[in-house]
Every structure is written in C-alpha cells, then in structure tokens.
C-alpha cells in the first residue's frame, strides 16, 4: 500500500469524529525516550503520527517545539536517528514526517525521499516549502508513493487555496491561526478556517497549530475537521514529566476520548 493510501485509510477507518495525529519531536529528549513516547501515542489511540525532524532554525515553530528541537540536537539527534523511529513506528501507524527544507537539500531531494520511503514514512510535511518551491520535492514524493502534504493558512488567498488544495495528497494540513506552533486558548476561528479550505480540496482536512486541550480537539471535530494535530501540548508534556511515555500516552487517551 502506498503512503497516500495508508494515510487515506487512517482517516476513513479511524472510527471517531476526526483522526488523531499527535506530533512527536524525533530524538527528544533522546532517541530511545522519543521512541517510547511514540509507542505511548500509538497505545493511547493515535491514528497517525507526525514525526518532527529537529532543525536549528525552525521558523514555523513556537518556543516549546523550538526548545525541544534544540535539546534533541544537543542530545545528538540526526535525520537517520529520527528515521529509525519511523521504521519501528510505521509497523504500527502511518508516519508523516515533518522537516524543514534545508534537511532535504542537505541530503539531496531524491536521496532524501528514497530514504524516508525506505523507512516506511507515508507522508511529508515541509513548513517552509510553499507551493512555489515545492515541485521537485512533490514530484519525488509522488514517484516514491509518499504523500506530499501542503499547508493552507488563514492568510492564504482563494487563488492559493485552489492550487494548494489540488496539490494535497494524503491530507491538507490546515493551519488554524496565523502564527507559529504553540498552545492557544481560542477555538472560535476553527469553523471559518475549515469552511474556507474545504471546497478547494478532495483530501481530508486536518487542523493544527494551537490545539492544546481535549475540548479544543472536540471543537475542531465539531467544526468539521477530518483530523486533529496536537503538537506543543504533547511536547511540553514530554519535557515536563518524569515518565514522558506514560504521561503522553495518558494525554493522548484524553484527546482520543474527546474525539470519540
């Protein structure tokens, strides 16, 4: 099954109002612990996992994910190390890799996509690769059966949404707020954002950025999201708890329950 099909099946077969996609900072706080956290996500009811590759200068990320990336790099995280997590995890769940564009350029786009496909990665999210810069990466992904997942933002014009929606494979990553990643209190805009992107794509619409409580996850599903992405809240849990795998599993269970 191609990555695109596997992601599609995860959305349609999730058995809840919206698929749950927790974000993991690969290699944070270290490689073995982050693998344990990932398994905690899967045990807690995750339908897919967004696996982050740490980067020195993550422009789309707020303080929590930035700090986790810095710590992961200090602990020796590498792309190959993160892909080891993908290899193990993809036995259980579809893995969608999140990395910044320089990681792709550093390895060479063709080699990069071949390597992530070999690690069982189903989809690729690159937050600093807008449509204009994406063709080479998207073509390599298509050839390898990896879903190239573009992002839509609240600031995107209708013209851009049409192009982004048509380019979406697997799902459309819909950014809930104009801002960086990080916990936020406001869910009032979810419905408008989803209503704006929905007509432009046939792919499932997953909402992310700022969703930090089970109540907000539920609100996202109420607003029509096909998937809900939880990032900073879980990364903060991993940073603050003595037993991050168990703590993150418990938290993921609460999000899963809210989406039932």
């Amino acid at each position, binding site marked *: 099954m191609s990555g695109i099909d596997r992601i599609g099946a995860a959305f349609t077969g999730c058995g809840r109002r919206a698929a749950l996609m927790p974000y993991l900072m690969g290699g944070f706080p270290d490689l073995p612990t982050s693998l344990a956290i990932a398994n905690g996500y899967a045990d807690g009811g995750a339908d897919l996992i967004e696996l982050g590759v740490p980067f020195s200068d993550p*422009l789309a990320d707020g303080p929590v994910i930035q700090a986790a990336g810095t710590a992961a790099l200090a602990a020796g995280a590498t792309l190959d190390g993160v892909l080891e997590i993908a290899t193990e995890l993809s036995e259980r769940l579809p893995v969608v890799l999140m990395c910044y564009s320089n990681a792709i350029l*550093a390895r060479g786009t063709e080699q990069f996509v071949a390597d992530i496909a070999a690690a069982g990665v189903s989809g690729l999210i690159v937050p600093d690769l807008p449509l204009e810069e994406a063709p080479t990466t998207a073509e390599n992904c298509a050839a390898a059966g990896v879903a190239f997942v573009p992002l839509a*933002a609240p600031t995107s014009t209708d013209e851009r949404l049409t192009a982004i929606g048509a380019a979406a494979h697997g799902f459309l990553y819909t950014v809930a707020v104009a801002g960086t990643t990080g916990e936020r209190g406001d869910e009032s805009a979810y419905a408008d954002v989803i209503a704006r992107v929905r007509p432009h794509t046939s792919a499932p619409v997953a909402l992310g950025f700022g969703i930090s409580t089970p109540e907000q996850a539920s609100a996202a599903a109420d607003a029509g999201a096909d998937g809900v992405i939880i990032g900073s809240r879980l990364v903060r849990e991993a940073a603050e708890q003595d037993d991050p795998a168990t703590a993150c599993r418990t938290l993921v269970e609460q999000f899963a329950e809210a989406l039932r």
Partner: protein
Amino acid sequence: MSDVSLEHRFGPYGGQYVPETLMPALAELEAAWISARADDEFQAELGRLLRDYAGRPTPLYLAERLSAVAGRTIYLKREDLLHTGAHKINNALGQALLAVRMGKRRIIAETGAGQHGVASATACALLDLECVVYMGAEDIRRQAPNVQRMGLLGATVVPVEAGARTLKEAVSEAIRDWVSNVADSHYIIGSAVGPAPYPAIVRDLQRCIGDEARAQILEREGRLPQRVIACVGGGSNAIGAFTAFVADESVELIGVEAAGEGLASGRHGAPLTAGGRPGVLHGSLSALLQDDEGQIAEAHSVSAGLDYPGSGPEHAWLRDSGRATYVAVTDEDALAAFERTAQLEGIIPALEPAHALHFALNVPSDSELDLICLSGRGDKDLAEVLALLGRS
C-alpha cells in the same frame, strides 16, 4: 496582474522558503514596492527624507593618508556620516514609508550590531509607527549604546536568548513575530537577505550608495575606480555599492567577509569565501555555513554586523557568475585597521567596514584607484574594541 516583477531568483539562489502564512504578505509587499518605486510622489518623499533628514548624498572622501600607506588612491564613500551612523537608514526609511503606504502601522525589525535597529527605530519615530526590534542577548551586551538609543527612540527591544544569541536568532524571531502579526505588521529586514522580494527591495533602497559614488568618482577622477570594496555580512552595503558598477566590466567588485578567528578555525562568518553547499536560511537559498545534516552553524565575528552564517542570494550569484570576488579578514586584522584608520584619518570606522579597510590597506594589488564603502561609524564599537585591545 502587472507584468513587472522583482527578482525571485539570482541564478539558482533566492526563492521564498517561508511558511504559507507569509506568502500572501510577500506578494502584497512585492506589488506595493513595484507601485511605490514607480510613483513620483513616493520617490519625492523618500528623496526628501534621504536628503534633508538622513544626509544624502554622502561625501566621497579622498583618504590621502590611507592612500599613502596603500600605495594607491583610496576613496571612502562616507555612509558613516549619515544620520544614525550607517547605511542602514537608507533601507529603513524606504521600507518604513512603504509600510505607511501599505497601511501597516507596526514595524518589526531585527538587529545585529544595532545599526539597523536604530535606523528602524528612528524611521518609526519620525513616521509615528510602533517599532519592535529583536536583538540577540549577546549583541545586546556588546552593543549597549545602540540598545539605549533604540529605547530612547521609543522602540521595544526584545532580547533573543536562543542559540548563540546573535543576529541569526534575531532574524528567526523577527520572522516568527511577522508570521503571527502579518495582518498589521511590516517586517523591515535589515540586509539583502530573506525571502523574495526582500533582497531586491533592499538592493533598490541601498543602490544610492553606488549610484552616488560612481558619479562622484567620475567627477573627481574622470574615470571609474579599478576596485569597489565593501564588507559583507548579509551584504546590504555591498550590494548597494556594487549595483551601479555591475555593468562596468573594468571595475573589480570585492566583498570582504569576516574570517573571525581564521577560516581554518571554523569560527568565522564567511560563507561566500569558504564555499560549500548552498542552503536555505531565513527564507532564501544562498551560501551558508551549515553541517552535513543541514543544521545551520553558528557564525563568529568580532563585529556583530558580520556575525551571520548566511549571505544575500544576489552575492552568491555574483560570486558564481564571476562578477564579484569574496575574501575574508580576521578579527585581529579588522581591529588593527579600525585603529589605524582612526589614527591616520581621524575617522573611527565601524568594525564591519574595518574588514574592508584592512583588505585594501594590506593585501597587495595592481589597482591604482580603490573605492571603499565606509558603511558605518565605530562609536558603537568603542567599548568592545578598547576591551579587546586591553585598554579599557
């Protein structure tokens, strides 16, 4: 849609590697600049401010004592005499006026040496705009006078504690602020870096340096210089100095980067000189200091303004196309040139152009006529330099 557009690529370099959230704002900015730059009223207002407020045109000064040392004629383009003490005001005034034109009343800026932060704070005070300046905590320590100036001008200086706490992190944080406040804010990037259309806009606003200097040297010497020399961090004063001369094939263009503790030490800020694989930082593809995984390396330079691991994309293309040459000068040599210029000419240069001065004074050349961009004055560096020279 207008047929006119600004360069998004310089050869393979440049581009727009930014979150989707910013893409509409970049398109709006490009359209606004194309319109403003062709608008006589806008140009007249900018021209008036550059002349009456900032002090343009700046003098082209024949530095006789430096010339005697170098054994060739050296002219200095005196950007150090501008209001706020550096070329940065050219760009800050232009972009602040553009922000007003776009109806954006909140300005975001980053700063390394503090010169661009001061220039932006100054333009914002003048035009009654809110101003938030991101500055690395290490730079706040070594550029204290400029931090005080920004405060006095009414700007909010936000310390950035990430990474090496210098210019790279300040730019990243400024971009994050812009992502979060894009509806009402304009980001005045301080160098010829960043996603398109920034490198082209900053060049357009800084090219007055070379346009003036070219006319001035033709009037004084009746000929073009053999070399135009400027320091390069991100590269805004250099692209400003070079642009008017790019079509003059006889004129050698030389960008001087920071060799820091030496290129071999790995502690430097010379991505164009050091070569290596290009990469993406702060929204554009260009020469870059990075490791094999694509993690951005920390730069090092005694001068905060050159302490940057990236470079403007147009410079990377000028290098690859053979039109310009890039070299690097160490901290130690820049400090020596700083002191020597003060003693020989009564001009205290900023540490950044001191790199260019060292190159012109000490590296042998057949050139008989050099034009050096003296991009800023060194008041901001006094405490740091005196401490490094063991005299504080």
